[in-house]
C-alpha cells in the first residue's frame, strides 16, 4: 500500500465508523478527489460528508473549530501546507487556546501536505512545523511510514486536542509498504520510535527526512562500519524526550536532521534538549542538519542542494564519529 492510499484508507474507515467525522477542503469532493487524490471516491461513498470549500483557509479552519466545539471531529485538508499560512491565526490563536481558556478541547485535524518535490518552488514545498509549534495548544505530527500515515491519522482524530497532521508529498506516491491495518500494535501518537537500532551515534529525524536517515545509517554500516541508531520523532510537538535521551545515553553522539529551515524549530529544540538534559551523555557536540536559509528554489538541482540528504547525513556522521 502506498503512503497516500494508507491516508485514504484511514479517512474512509474514519468516515465509516464515526458519524462525527467529516472532511472539508478545496477540491476534495468527487469526481476530482483532491489535488493529491487523498479523498478520491470518498464523497461518493459518504454523501454530504466530504465538502468542497471556497479558497478561504482562515474560514476553513474557523469552520472546523466551530464544528469541533459542537461535537464533531472535522478534518480539514489544506491543498498545500504553504497555504495554511493564511490560516495561522485560527490555528494558533483559536484552536490552540480554547482548552486553556475554556476547559473545552477543540478536536480538529488539519491535514497539511508538506515537504519538497523537485520543481515545486518556494510556495509548494514548505515544512510548517516550526511556526505551528511555538504557540501552546497544538499537536504537530509528521508520519514517515505507510503504517504511521494510517494509524497516526486515526490517532489524530481520536486525540481531543487540535492536531496538525503533516503528510509528506514526496512520500504520497513514492513510499510503499505492507502493513496490517488490523494490528492493535502501534505506538501512541506522541511516541518517537527507533527505526533502526545502533550503538555509535543517533540520527534524529522526522517526516521525509527519516528515509534519508535510514539510508545514511545503512551506508554508514556497510561502507564505514559505523552503527547509527535512527530515531523517528513522529510527533514533533510535544517531543518524546524520553526516547531521544535514551538513545543518546547509549550512543553519546547525535545528529538532528530536518528538511525545514535552520532557525528554531524541532532541530533547535532537540539540540537544546540534549544539551540541557543529556549533557552528561554527550561525547561530542550535537549536530544539526537543516535546509539552506533561503526560500526553496524551483530548479531541481538547486532544490536538491537546498536540503540535507543521506549523503549529507553520512558526511556529518563521519565527522561526528571522528570528534
Amino acid at each position, binding site marked *: 500500500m502506498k503512503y497516500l492510499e494508507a491516508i485514504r484508507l484511514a479517512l474512509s474507515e474514519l468516515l465509516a465508523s464515526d458519524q462525527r467525522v467529516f472532511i472539508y477542503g478545496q477540491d476534495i469532493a468527487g469526481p476530482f478527489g483532491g489535488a493529491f487524490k487523498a479523498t478520491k471516491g470518498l464523497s461518493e461513498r459518504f454523501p454530504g460528508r466530504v465538502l468542497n470549500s471556497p479558497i*478561504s483557509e*482562515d474560514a476553513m479552519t474557523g*469552520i472546523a473549530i*466551530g464544528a469541533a*466545539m459542537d461535537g464533531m471531529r472535522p478534518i480539514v485538508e489544506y491543498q498545500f501546507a504553504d497555504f495554511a499560512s493564511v490560516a495561522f491565526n485560527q490555528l494558533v490563536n*483559536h484552536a490552540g487556546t480554547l482548552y486553556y481558556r475554556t476547559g473545552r478541547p477543540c478536536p480538529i485535524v488539519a491535514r497539511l501536505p508538506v515537504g519538497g518535490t523537485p520543481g515545486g518552488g518556494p510556495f509548494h514545498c514548505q515544512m510548517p512545523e516550526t511556526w505551528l509549534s511555538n504557540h*501552546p495548544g497544538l499537536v504537530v505530527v509528521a508520519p514517515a511510514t505507510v503504517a504511521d500515515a494510517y494509524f497516526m491519522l486515526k490517532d489524530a482524530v481520536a486525540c481531543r486536542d487540535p492536531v496538525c497532521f503533516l503528510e509528506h508529498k514526496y512520500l504520497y506516491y513514492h513510499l510503499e509498504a505492507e502493513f496490517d491495518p488490523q494490528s492493535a500494535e502501534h505506538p501512541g*501518537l506522541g511516541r518517537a520510535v527507533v527505526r533502526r537500532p545502533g550503538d555509535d551515534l543517533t540520527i534524529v529525524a522526522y517526516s521525509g527526512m527519516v528515509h534519508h536517515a535510514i539510508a545514511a545509517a545503512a551506508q554508514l554500516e556497510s561502507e564505514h562500519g559505523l552503527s547509527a541508531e535512527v530515531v523517528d520523532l513522529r510527533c514533533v510537538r510535544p517531543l518524546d524526550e524520553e526516547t531521544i535521551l535514551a538513545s543518546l545515553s547509549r550512543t553519546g553522539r547525535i545528529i538532528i536532521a530536518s528538511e525545514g529551515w535552520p532557525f528554531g524549530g524541532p532541530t533547535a529544540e532537540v539540540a537544546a534538549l540534549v544539551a540541557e538534559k543529556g549533557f552528561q551523555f554527550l561525547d561530542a557536540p550535537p549536530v544539526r542538519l537543516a535546509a539552506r536559509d533561503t526560500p526553496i528554489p524551483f530548479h531541481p538541482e538547486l532544490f536538491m542542494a537546498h536540503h540535507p540528504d543521506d549523503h549529507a547525513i553520512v558526511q556529518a556522521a563521519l565527522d561526528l564519529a571522528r570528534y
Partner: protein
Amino acid sequence: MTQQADRIALFRIMVLARTCDDRMAKLKAQNEVPGSVFVGRGQEAFSAAAGMRLRPGDLFAPLIRDQAGRFAFGETPLDAIRTVLGRRTGPMRGRDGNVHRGDWAAGLLPMISHLGAMVSPVVGTLLARRLAGKQTAGDLSVGVASIGDGGMNTGALHEAVNAAAVERLPLVLLVADNQYAYSTTSDRTYACAHLVERAIGYGIAGYRCDGTDADACLETVGAAITAARAGKGPQMVVADLLRLAGHGTHDDASYVGEDVKSRFGDCLQFYERTLMQQGVLTAESLAAIRDEARKQVEDAVQQALGEPQPDVAAEEWWARSERDLVNVRSA
C-alpha cells in the same frame, strides 16, 4: 409574549446593560479591574434586540459592545462581572478576561481578540448541526455574530460570510456601524455608500436599521432572525449608531466630532421617552426597572468582589487536554 411585554423586556435589558457597563467603568476607576473595560453605551438597543430574538440552542458570538445582547441571551451579571474582575469563579477562571468570556456549551462564544475571527466558528457550528441532523427544517437554530464597521474589512470576516452564503446557513451578521473603528472614521475604513451594500456581493439578504430606535432594531433584527430560521440563508443587518463612550474606559473619545454627535442620540433615552409617552412605562414602573437593574448589578458586584482570585499555586499549566500524548491511541 405580547408586543408591549416584549418592548418592556427589551427596555429592561437595555437598562440592565447600561447599569452594568457603568458599574464596570466605576470598578475600573476604583482599580478593581485588571484589564480594559469596554462598554456598549449607545448600542444597547441593537445588541439587545438580537439576544431577545434568540432562544436556547441558538448561538451568539458577541464582541466588545454586546453586554445588552449577552444579558438578553442569558448571561448573568455575575458571570460578566466576575470575569471582568478576573475571579477564579466564572467561565474563564481568570485565565481570560473582560469581553472574552463565554460558554460554548451555552452557545455563547468566548471571543478571541482578532476581529472577524469569531464568524467562521459560528458558521462551522451551524454546518455541524446540519451535518449531524440536529436541525429542523423551517425552524433552524441560528447563529448571530457581531461585527463592527472596522471589522467588516478583515479577511476573516469576508471568508466566513462567503462560506456561510455558499452553504446557505442560518447565520445572522449583526453589523454595528458606529461611525468609528477605535479612532478611525468610516471614510478611512470603507468606501461603499452603506455597509449593507456588502450583502448583495455575498448573495445574502441585507437590512438597514436605525440603531438608536429600539423598536426598529427589534423589528428588523427579528425579521432577519426569522428569515434565517426559515432557511433563507445568511442575513446581514447593519445598524447606524454611535458609540456614546470611549473605545474603552481608557479612551476619552475626544476625536469624535460634534457634527457626528449631533446626528446620533441615545437609544436608551429615546426608548424611555417613547415608552413613557405611549404609557407603556409609568414613572413607577420605570423607577422599579432602574432599581431592579441597580440591585441585580450591585448584588453581582458584591458577590464577585468576595469571590476568590485564581490560585497561582494550584494553577494547571496545560494548553492541551491530553496530558500524555505518548499514550493517545485510537480504539
